[in-house]
């Protein structure tokens, strides 16, 4: 176990009392609570942590935050492994184990580093130009490309952890817990606003934690802690650390992703979620998202040991880690001067500071006094060292970025801190519809258009000096509070020491080092270089989006946080146009990657989608029913007895119904009460057939059409009283039909006096059907005469069944004498059990929807959605008689359209096939199976009819009704043969209807 050789003796926000053991690439290390994996690796002197995506070049830790392009690791094993995690964002926990991604066989000896050697053959978009011949080899090439791409591994087992989501509302959401965000939150909270403040790091404070700046005489980090604890104690203020604002949606809807576990002081318990998504609806949003430091683009700017200057400050101040022994600091702005001093204070030898600007900075004095050699007008022109940085070259740079002459000086070092200026983190602003413009003076893209309800504050707004940042934060908080109608007083003024900001920036997009075969990386993650961008521009890929796609710049997991602005600058130089003409790419959400599991939340497993069950469900389960999913419903498909298979069970169930009596749970049917004087007229318009003349106590089958004339639902509607009607719909159509009715009533015919109320769930519906149905029911029913004369087919009665209030409909979907008995749902089970008991002497049997389908098909009854699709008219179904022409109704006009009205459309017929054919089989024209085979229709329903003891089917066939009696061919293309079938009427059984009228 190695010692933490690079740990500074004191300081940092880590807890030195708590040592934490971890493993990286199989080696054991220790760090402290409060470390990230990155800081702990640096503390242990680990520099090489990964390989790049394309060239597999050795890479080290480059940043200290979510922008990290290099240090991507695979965390843990088995079901809990996490691919592609940024080491800079992983908080160290005891027993943590991580490995480098995309290396084989090992990090040090990675065979694919050959790509770096042959990189001259792999310029941007090389794959578009090659691998084309011979064509048969492409799949092999593709396989090779695929295997060399990709990063981490997919877990091998399902995720054992939980994820959670929560909706919250607030007056002011503050994104970012740095100085500006804390001030904004404080100001808004003081005004009485409901405030949420979120920061992606473990502690609030932002840059204050990574500098020696002071506020009000105390360390910036102490000030931040004070403000944070004050906010946390307020009732209507939520302080969320480890929480990233990932997505900015419409109307100030912001998605936050919180890491709840995975750190030392995580809440305990089995049920604590790993991550929680906060879906925030904010009346006002303050974006205090800070800025990201830009890398410098120079030859071989990717070696392990090169890192952002601000990251080096972060490691020193926040983690008490020396990121190297001997450093060179290079940049184009003032921020490198305090860093040089901070590094020195931490025990790092700073051998040189290269400031690209020609004018010396006022801050230079301190550094110079510390003995740092300061080279103005200089930049990095080259680096040495493969597995880790060994040295850098610094040379004077002309205005156009050209290295002037041969005057490079070489410095040995193991750390190079770079600062290319700061880019306001404007991802969320961009997602919200805001726009950016390049500000030459500040050397960065700053907000140009900020949508309503959003305020920018601090360095996110291009304001970098700490005093100004604090003032802007406060102003944003005050303004946000006022915008929601609150007033606030001023906060006590904070006196600032330090926090100078970058000052004037010399934008220098790249170093022009001629004739050298080195790479200058613009996108470290995706290995996109200045040469790639130049090639894209040369070849005509000049739109910034083309460049991005051709070179893959900005398309990696870091979302271009580091590389995008430099890429724009390099492109602008290449095209000789100002940066603002080049434009910017759109930032797509999320700001940092969000876990699938978190976004799915608890809508997985048993809760993936509601399982809807009827009041009789428990009985079906007890009886061993096999279920079928019908929409969200579980419906009994059949009830096997003994060792029966489905066919045997269904045949038996059919026999029971045809010869004795059967029982069906029909509770899933849609049911709608309609009340009012105009219901009859309304139904006339809704149904294709007439309803206003339906007498009280009667029911009638109706077809519902869309305005396009196509059948979309059917059902039976009863008239219970003069102004009281009761409609049934298909199971799947229940909600849709109710919405359909309300749509027409509310939007088109508000003059009609009709109220609709869904009662689908109010009633349990049991269908008692078969020749013995009357005998069974007679024992249980009071009040009414069940005789065919007194209670004929298509009539409805209210009665008491086993003492329960019931509505009984004589309607039949089996062709047998049937009673559809409705009782309040709570009594459904009581009714069912009573019927089962009363039916015992008739050998009653429950039957499922499979038997129901066979029985209804024998009668030629359609099932909408089964025998129809969205192209079937009433006439196609042979139901022209119930699509009358006398009155207008929805869809009627469409039936007259030239194509819809033509003869020879596909029409519903029965088929008597010579053997069972699968549903969906096509009916073909002609004898041959040579493709393309002309098709004239298809089988919609197909069963072995127990009653007829033969296969039967229903089909939609072109001009089918004129083909009754003819024989047609049903193709079985998998068997390369056809089955002959006779076209018949779809009614196979009891065409006179004597049984159901019995």
């Amino acid at each position: 176990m190695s010692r933490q050789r690079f740990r500074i003796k004191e300081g940092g926000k880590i807890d030195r009392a708590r040592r934490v053991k971890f493993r990286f690439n199989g080696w054991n290390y220790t760090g402290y609570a409060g470390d990230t994996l990155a800081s702990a690796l640096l503390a242990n002197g680990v520099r090489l942590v990964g390989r790049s995506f394309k060239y597999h070049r050795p890479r080290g830790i480059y940043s200290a935050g979510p922008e990290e392009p290099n240090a991507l690791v695979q965390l843990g094993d088995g079901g809990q492994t996490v691919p592609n995690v940024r080491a800079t964002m992983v908080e160290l926990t005891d027993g943590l184990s991580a490995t480098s991604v995309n290396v084989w066989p090992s990090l040090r000896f990675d065979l694919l580093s050959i790509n770096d050697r042959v990189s001259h053959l792999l310029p941007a978009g090389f794959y578009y130009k090659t691998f084309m011949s011979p064509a048969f080899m492409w799949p092999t090439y593709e396989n090779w490309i695929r295997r060399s791409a990709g990063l981490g591994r997919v877990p091998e087992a399902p995720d054992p952890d939980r994820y959670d989501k929560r909706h919250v509302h607030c007056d002011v959401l503050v994104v970012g817990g740095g100085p500006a965000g804390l001030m904004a939150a404080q100001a808004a909270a003081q005004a009485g606003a409901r405030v949420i403040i979120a920061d992606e790091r473990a502690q609030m404070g932002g840059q204050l934690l990574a500098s020696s700046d002071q506020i009000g005489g105390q360390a910036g980090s102490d000030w931040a802690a004070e403000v944070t604890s004050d906010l946390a104690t307020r009732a209507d203020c939520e302080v969320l650390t480890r929480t990233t604002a990932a997505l900015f949606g419409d109307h100030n809807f912001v998605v936050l992703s919180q890491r709840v576990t995975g750190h030392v002081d995580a809440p305990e318990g089995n049920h604590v979620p790993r991550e929680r998504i906060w879906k925030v609806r904010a009346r006002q949003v303050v974006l205090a998202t800070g800025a990201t430091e830009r890398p410098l683009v120079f030859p071989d700017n990717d070696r392990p040991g090169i890192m952002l200057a601000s990251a080096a400050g972060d490691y020193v101040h926040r983690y008490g880690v020396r990121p190297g022994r001997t450093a060179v600091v290079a940049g184009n702005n003032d921020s490198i001067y305090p860093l040089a001093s901070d590094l020195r204070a931490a025990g790092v030898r700073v051998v040189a500071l290269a400031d690209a600007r020609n004018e010396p900075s006022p801050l230079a004095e301190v550094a110079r006094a510390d003995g740092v050699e300061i080279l103005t007008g200089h930049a990095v022109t080259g680096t040495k060292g493969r597995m880790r940085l060994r040295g850098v070259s610094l040379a004077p740079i002309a205005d156009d970025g050209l290295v002037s002459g041969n005057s490079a000086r070489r410095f040995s070092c193991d750390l190079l801190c770079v600062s290319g200026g700061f880019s306001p983190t404007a991802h969320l602003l961009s997602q919200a519809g805001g726009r950016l413009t390049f500000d030459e003076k500040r050397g960065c893209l700053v907000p140009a258009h900020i949508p309503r309800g959003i305020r920018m504050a601090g360095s996110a707004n291009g304001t970098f000096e700490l005093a100004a940042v604090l003032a802007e934060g406060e102003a944003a908080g005050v303004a946000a509070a006022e915008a929601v109608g609150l007033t606030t007083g001023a906060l006590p003024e904070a006196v600032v020491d330090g926090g100078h900001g970058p000052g004037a920036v010399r934008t220098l997009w790249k170093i022009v080092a001629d004739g050298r075969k080195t790479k200058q990386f613009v996108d470290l993650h995706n290995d996109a270089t200045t040469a790639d961008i130049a090639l894209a521009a040369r070849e005509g890929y000049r739109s910034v989006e083309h460049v991005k796609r051709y070179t893959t710049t900005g398309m990696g997991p870091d979302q271009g946080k580091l590389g995008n602005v430099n890429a724009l600058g390099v492109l602008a130089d290449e095209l000789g146009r100002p940066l603002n003409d080049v434009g910017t790419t759109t930032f797509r959400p999320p700001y940092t990657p969000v876990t699938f599991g978190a976004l799915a939340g608890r809508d997985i497993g048993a809760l993936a989608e509601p399982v809807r069950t009827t009041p009789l469900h428990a009985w079906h389960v007890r009886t061993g029913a096999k279920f079928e999913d019908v929409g969200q419903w579980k419906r009994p498909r059949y009830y096997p007895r003994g060792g029966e298979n489905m066919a045997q069970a269904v045949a038996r169930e059919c026999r029971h119904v045809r010869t004795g009596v059967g029982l069906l749970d029909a509770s899933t049917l849609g049911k709608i009460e309609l009340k009012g004087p105009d219901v009859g007229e309304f139904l006339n318009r809704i149904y294709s057939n007439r309803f206003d003349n339906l007498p009280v106590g009667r029911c009638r089958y109706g077809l519902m059409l869309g305005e396009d004339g196509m059948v979309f639902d059917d059902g039976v509607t009863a008239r219970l009283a003069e102004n009281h009607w009761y409609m049934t719909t298909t199971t799947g159509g229940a909600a849709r039909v109710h919405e359909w009715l309300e749509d027409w009533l509310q939007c088109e015919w508000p003059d009609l006096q009709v109220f609709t109320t869904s009662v689908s769930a109010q009633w349990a519906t049991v269908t008692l059907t078969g020749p013995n149905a009357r005998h069974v029911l007679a024992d249980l029913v009071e009040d009414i005469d069940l005789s065919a004369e007194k209670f004929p087919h298509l009539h409805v009665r209210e009665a008491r069944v086993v003492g329960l209030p019931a509505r009984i409909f004589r309607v039949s979907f089996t062709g047998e004498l049937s009673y559809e008995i409705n009782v309040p749902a709570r009594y459904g089970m009581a009714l069912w059990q009573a019927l089962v008991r009363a039916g015992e002497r008739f050998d009653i049997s429950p039957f499922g929807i499979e038997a129901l389908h066979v029985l209804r098909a024998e009668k030629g009854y359609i099932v909408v959605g089964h025998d129809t699709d969205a192209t079937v008219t009433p006439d196609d179904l042979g139901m022209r008689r119930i699509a009358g022409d006398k009155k207008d109704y929805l869809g009627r006009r469409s039936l007259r359209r030239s194509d819809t009205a033509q003869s020879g459309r596909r029409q519903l017929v029965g088929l008597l096939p010579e053997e069972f054919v699968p549903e969906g089989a096509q009916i073909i024209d002609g004898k041959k199976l040579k493709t393309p085979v002309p098709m004239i229709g298809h089988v919609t329903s197909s069963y072995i009819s127990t009653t007829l003891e033969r296969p039967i089917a229903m089909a939609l066939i072109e001009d089918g009704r004129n083909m009754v009696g003819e024989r047609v061919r049903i193709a079985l293309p998998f068997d390369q043969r056809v089955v002959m079938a006779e076209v018949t009427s779809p009614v196979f059984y009891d065409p006179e209807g004597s049984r159901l009228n019995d």
Partner: protein
Amino acid sequence: MTRYSALNLWRHSRQGHTQWPEAWGSPEPKSDYDVIIVGGGGHGLATAHYLAKNHGITNVAVLEKGWIGGGNTGRNTTILRSNYLWDESAALYELSLKLYEGLSKDLNYNIMLSQRGVINLAHTEHEMREVSRRVNAIRLNGIDSEILTPEQIKEMVPILNTGPGGRYPVLGGALQRRGGVARHDAVAWGLARAADSRGVDIIQNCEVTGFNIRSGQVEGVETTLGPISAKKVGVVVAGHAGVLADLAGFRLPIESHPLQALVSEPLKPFFNVVLMSGTVHVYLSQSDRGELVMGAGMDTYNSYAQRGSLPIIEQMLGACLELFPVLSRLKVMRMWGGIVDICPDASPIIGKTPVDNLFFNCGWGTGGFKATPGSGYVFADTIAKGEPHALAAPFSLDRFSTGALIDEHGAAAVAH
């Protein structure tokens, strides 16, 4: 045109790749063209390519308001297949798939066609019935298609959750082995390069702001770069067909909706087919870079904002994890929306409009990318001859009057 080949790549590498010519030029627009194609997406560029290649019409301009391939061509999930139910659709999409199969060679630009197979899952008896109907019809139309058992699917996609107790049991599925994916940008760029090499002007950053119509006949367009006249104008602007039709003075049976997609962070290869499930609204494949590319249902309201609503994404990921529980710890890297033109029957409109010599090709809904070369092929023919190509004829605008709709709602990966 400098040929692209491994040999040439090597040759150019010796000059540091500094001598590659432009893939396509950036000409100033001429005042007058035989044909103007409005819209520099895949379909528009394919139209120009086939106008030049098949019909010898090269005095053509493609006008693109932004950058070529920047609309739905660059924002889709790159799925290719031709497994459509109705004869009319099957013929059109099969033409397209066949053209795709030869496109890299035709264009001398590797579009990275990957025919890894497309599986449509069925989770209910109802869906199995639909699968059977569709596969039977497709086979009889001479297009490859198979029905798979759950065991066969499990073998092809080992990480699929086919265990008992799943909320969405897998009862079976359909497979088109020739289906797959291609690199979307490459399709647009390759077509642009090929069209350019035959003399077509590709003019970017040129927005059409109006049509010059005289006596019911189009004579040219107004653009942000000034007026340009043309004998014929073809409009191929997925997502904005309604806006352009409005400029030309007529309405279309089209609504524009956002369709969302996302990619995960890149991972080592683990998933080697394209998989779709209509019931749970998700379709996914793994790109050559290792990203999982996923699409979901469509937002139900009109929108030209290239973003959609979160619930669609949440629902898609819930469904995804129900099918693939091991993916839970993956991360969404980037999400976006495309704007799709939706017709009432989920089929496109190709052909003439109420304005003479003005042709529209639109309404591809969620299925445009797979149709790219086929669409361009029949549209070029239609423009060249002034009469619908036989395969385009059923997709004419007047079907909405006659009622001869081609209902392909079931064919889309997402139910509209």
